């Protein structure tokens, strides 16, 4: 058992650390101290991934997977958490919700994500999903005196629980069809006993649960309302960490069972159509949004569509492209939400028109926002371009050239609404200047994100290698 704790070191560290955080918050009751301790916790997780990367294998019987895939996905979640913590404090003070609990709940949510990213058993995925989601519902309602935030939390909770119900029912049917919950054994059972209709129904229900979490069409309607109503920094976390977690779980499930499925084309076609619908709805609806948080919500739907292209490809290249995309999307989206959080004032100053002339008032902020918008639009030389290239290339290799073409067309549409923000910032005259509430750590984090996004666009090879390696070993 001690060995298992060491094999899953990031989860062990996080679980012990969250107890420290809770006790600290209970006895000292100082939000700033809790914030720093949370940041140290995330840094510790990241350090443990680099210093003691887990070897390939299983931990706790066959409950958890260890190895490169887990290292990579855990890294994404910890980075997402660390960045959101570093952009949160001034915003929370401004909105008068600077509670230590915010950081603790965020940390707990990350534990759920790490469970999802290292699960080898459907029940573990479910526990991780619930840990993550329940924490996120609470984060969405953190502005407890604000009706919109309450509405966001309520909507997210009701729809999320409903999706979880589908997910659980899917697990139950898969268990009924194969008699197994561990993913490798499910694949083995399918290979010996064949694939039954019951299994297909179960798998579809399971996919509904995942597609809800990544906000793919037609399970996307909650996204804009929830992102707009939640605290901006919490929305940054929801749109990045939870999406990455759902995608890594999806990859784990698909890469395990797809070898045992006789007719892969069915799954591939289904994902391809969902990807097309997601990209189309996300991008076209985002065109008409004036509120930047809503615009980013629809853009997050569209990005889920791009990542689904990689899933539809169903190859190692596709999956590793999704991993890379999840990482770069985490960086650039936290960055974009971070800039919004710096400028937002109690739900005002979140429209694109409020950013008119921002360059003249706050050149640094405008420059950062421009980097994130360019990267989200997928323009070279920023990291978003490499991510898109990787998933679309995987689609072409998997004989889904039409899907790649649709993806490129959708990205062309998306350029309009991202550049609209840039045009407002750089080419319009300033209205009464929006006051920025940036502080040292927040600004440093935003600049660092922008630099990394830039570097990941110019020198993507190393990270791509890591993502490729993660998939190669995981599929063995």
């Amino acid at each position, binding site marked *: *058992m001690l060995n298992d704790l060491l094999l899953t070191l990031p989860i062990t560290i996080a679980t012990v650390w969250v*107890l420290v955080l*809770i*006790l600290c*918050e*209970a*006895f000292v*009751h100082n939000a700033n101290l809790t914030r720093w301790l949370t940041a140290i916790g995330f840094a510790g997780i990241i350090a443990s991934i680099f210093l003691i990367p887990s070897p390939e294998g299983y931990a706790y019987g066959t409950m958890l997977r260890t190895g490169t895939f887990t290292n990579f996905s855990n890294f994404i979640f910890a980075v997402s958490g660390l960045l959101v913590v570093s952009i949160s404090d001034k915003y929370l003070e401004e909105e008068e919700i600077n509670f230590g609990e915010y950081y603790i709940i965020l940390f707990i949510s990350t534990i759920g994500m790490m469970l999802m990213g290292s699960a080898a058993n459907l029940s573990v995925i479910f526990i991780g999903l619930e840990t993550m989601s329940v924490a996120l519902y609470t984060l969405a309602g953190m502005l407890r005196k604000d009706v919109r935030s309450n509405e966001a939390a309520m909507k997210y909770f009701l729809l999320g629980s409903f999706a979880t119900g589908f997910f659980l029912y899917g697990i139950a049917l898969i268990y009924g069809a194969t008699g197994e919950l561990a993913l490798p054994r499910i694949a083995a059972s399918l290979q010996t006993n064949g694939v039954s209709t019951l299994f297909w129904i179960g798998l579809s229900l399971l996919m509904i649960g995942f597609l809800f979490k990544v906000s793919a069409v037609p399970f996307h309607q909650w996204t804009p309302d929830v992102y707009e109503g939640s605290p901006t920094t919490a929305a940054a976390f929801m749109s990045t960490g939870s999406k990455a977690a759902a995608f890594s779980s999806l990859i784990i499930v698909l890469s395990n069972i797809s070898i045992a499925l006789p007719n892969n084309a069915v799954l591939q076609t289904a994902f391809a159509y969902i990807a097309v619908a997601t990209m189309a709805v996300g991008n076209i609806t985002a065109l008409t949004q004036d509120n930047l948080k809503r615009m980013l919500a629809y853009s997050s739907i569209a990005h889920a569509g791009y990542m689904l292209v990689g899933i539809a490809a169903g190859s190692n290249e596709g999956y590793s492209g999704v991993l890379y995309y999840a990482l770069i999307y985490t960086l650039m989206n936290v960055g974009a939400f971070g800039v919004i959080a710096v400028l937002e004032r109690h739900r005002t100053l979140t429209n694109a028109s409020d950013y008119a002339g921002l360059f003249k008032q706050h050149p640094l902020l405008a420059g950062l926002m421009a980097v994130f918008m360019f990267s989200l639009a997928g323009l070279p030389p920023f990291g978003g371009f490499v991510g898109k290239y990787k998933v679309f290339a995987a689609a072409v290799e998997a004989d889904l050239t039409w899907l790649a073409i649709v993806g490129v067309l959708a990205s062309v549409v998306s350029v309009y609404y991202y550049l609209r923000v840039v045009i407002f910032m750089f080419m319009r005259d300033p209205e009464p200047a929006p006051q920025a509430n940036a502080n040292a750590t927040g600004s440093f984090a935003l600049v660092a994100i922008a630099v990394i996004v830039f570097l990941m666009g110019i020198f993507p090879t190393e990270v791509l290698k890591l993502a490729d390696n993660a998939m190669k070993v995981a599929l063995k």
Partner: protein
Amino acid sequence: MIEAYLPIFAMIVIAIVLGVLLLTLGRLLGPKRSNSEKMSTYESGIEPVGTAKARISVKYYLVAMFFIIFDIEVIFMYPWAVNLREFGVSGLVSMITFALLLLVGYFYILKKGGLEWN
């Protein structure tokens, strides 16, 4: 495989038919002589007091939630206690860890004043 579910299907059909049939028959054939006593809310024979939509202090929900948490702890302990010898040391360590986790939560509740009523 599917045939095995036939009795369950038959039972569902009979239940629906019987329910609909009896309620419809009662409605059609039964005499309707209502007075205010008959139309009032049925509260197990006791005279109704006020409306059910009374406001309850949010603290009540807090206490209810704490109760559920520790209730579940005890529920997990029963099967563990029955099989204590078979689980051995590792079972004991697991249960102590579980109890400690909840204890941390309990300290949090205590320190945050979750159990104070004023």
